[in-house]
């Protein structure tokens, strides 16, 4: 018969003497149970992106408006020399996060001066099962695929912008030399990298325990209002939180070693001073660790905002202030101006 040690008395206990709470905890863990399961009820099925009936519009492969590589089947030489910005959204988000910038670019100077290619990250914008089974490497894959597609179609003036985890993925690609690898990416190198609220250190420090308590907790839902639930996953399975921390942590330690951008590329980062998702110290990590090809610092600006991804104002629970709108338009204007008028 199995016996257990009573440490205080130094004796072996029969199973009947084992405390009830120890038996419960052991059974719970043994059964692989989790405190909060990923669930999707009727409200979720009908109105949330988690359910699958409300996919992001860019999840549809036949959609020609999201990706510039699909928008123009046979671009002429003028189009090929138009600046294109590949925009990558953040964790649990969708291309909705860059909608306003897309509209801004469409109306800039009568339209057509800057093209915005809204990339839907892998595992995002489809349904919660796809998200739960995805890794951070899959999240970032569509960014490089769109870059390669643009180069193969003859586009010569390509820049990249990332918000939150989208920026973290771009940093990871810079760190591992993805833009210096392969015939397409060495043929046309990125002009600009723009980072909006890059996530290197999460504000919620408990995320660092995701590998330890995550399997027990299971899921950390983050419900918003109906608009947010239609564009951001509400459920945040522990598998994805672990992936997120792993990515952020990896980028952080690579930034500590320092790495350079491809020759001719430039970068600029903006960071909210008060951010409930990405710790503002993330901006310092990026500024110290990321250098241009000559070893110089990138451009950085701390902005007076309390919003995470301050460039996205639509769909916020509280209406944006005049200062928020002004800041958003200023940053959009700077990005558009940089890609149009600044030569590497």
């Amino acid at each position, binding site marked *: 018969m199995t016996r257990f040690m009573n440490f205080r008395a130094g004796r072996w206990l029969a199973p009947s003497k084992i405390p009830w709470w120890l038996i419960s905890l052991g059974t719970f863990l043994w059964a692989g149970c989790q405190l909060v399961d990923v669930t999707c009820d009727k409200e979720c099925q009908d109105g949330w992106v988690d359910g699958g009936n409300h996919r992001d519009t860019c999840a549809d492969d036949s959609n020609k408006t999201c990706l510039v590589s699909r928008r123009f089947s046979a671009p002429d030489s003028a189009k090929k020399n138009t600046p294109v910005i590949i925009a990558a959204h953040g964790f649990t988000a969708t291309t909705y996060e860059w909608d306003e910038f897309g509209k801004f670019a469409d109306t800039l100077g009568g339209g057509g001066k800057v093209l915005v290619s809204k990339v839907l990250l892998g595992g995002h914008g489809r349904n919660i099962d796809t998200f739960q089974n995805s890794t951070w490497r899959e999240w970032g894959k569509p960014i490089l695929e769109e870059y390669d597609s643009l180069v193969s179609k003859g586009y010569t003036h390509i820049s990249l912008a990332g918000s939150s985890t989208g920026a973290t993925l771009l940093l990871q690609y810079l760190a591992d030399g993805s833009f210096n690898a392969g015939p397409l990416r060495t043929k046309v190198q990125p002009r600009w990298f723009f980072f909006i609220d890059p996530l290197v250190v999460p*504000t919620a420090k*408990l995320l660092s*325990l995701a590998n*330890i308590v995550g399997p027990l907790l299971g899921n950390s839902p983050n419900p918003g209002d109906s608009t947010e639930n239609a564009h951001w996953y509400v459920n945040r399975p522990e598998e994805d939180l672990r992936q997120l921390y792993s990515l952020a942590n*990896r980028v952080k330690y690579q*930034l*500590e070693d320092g790495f350079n951008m491809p020759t001719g590329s430039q970068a600029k980062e903006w960071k909210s001073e008060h951010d409930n998702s990405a710790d503002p*110290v993330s901006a*310092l990590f990026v500024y110290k660790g990321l250098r241009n090809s000559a070893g110089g610092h990138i451009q950085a600006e701390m902005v007076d905002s309390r919003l995470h991804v301050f460039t996205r104002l639509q769909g916020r629970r509280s209406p944006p202030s005049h200062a928020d709108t002004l800041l958003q338009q200023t940053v959009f204007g700077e990005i558009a101006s940089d890609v149009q008028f600044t030569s590497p």
Partner: protein
Amino acid sequence: MTPYLRKALAVLAILATGVCADEGLWSLGMRMEGDVDLEPGNEYMLGPEIGYSNFDLGAHKLQLKGAFLTNRARQLLHKDIIKQDKYLFSPVWHFGRNNWFDPTVQADLGYMHYDREYRIFSSLNNSSWIAALQLGFALNLFQGEYGLFYHFGYNLITPSSGLVLPGLFGVGLWVML
């Protein structure tokens, strides 16, 4: 020396003078603390620590430690780290001070800050108080003349803007003076 380090040392000195000096055991050691997150590439902070215990402090079961930990040595290998310092006062309760294996409970109380280095980042809140609880053990070697210790625990203060993570561990060694 920062005002916080001065305060920590003053507290340690006051506690030390409150007991009979001739009964005191002083130790000198090195402590390394790191984050616990089960990911590669942890942050490590290293530095000296001093310890004091006395027969009147629970028959040497209560040991008072002071430590200065820094990650500045990591610059040798990782040139772009954010430089951090910690000033810690650590009361330790030993359950088996006279034994080879000595379970311990320890609190870390103190202060940390990191260097912002550039004016652009002057708005960053670069400091935090520290309060951590840890469990561990010490190995008393050569009748307690030398020893090793290990402890792990939880940081109770993890500011949203800062570099203090909840999970931590520490290892170290000491020699009796």
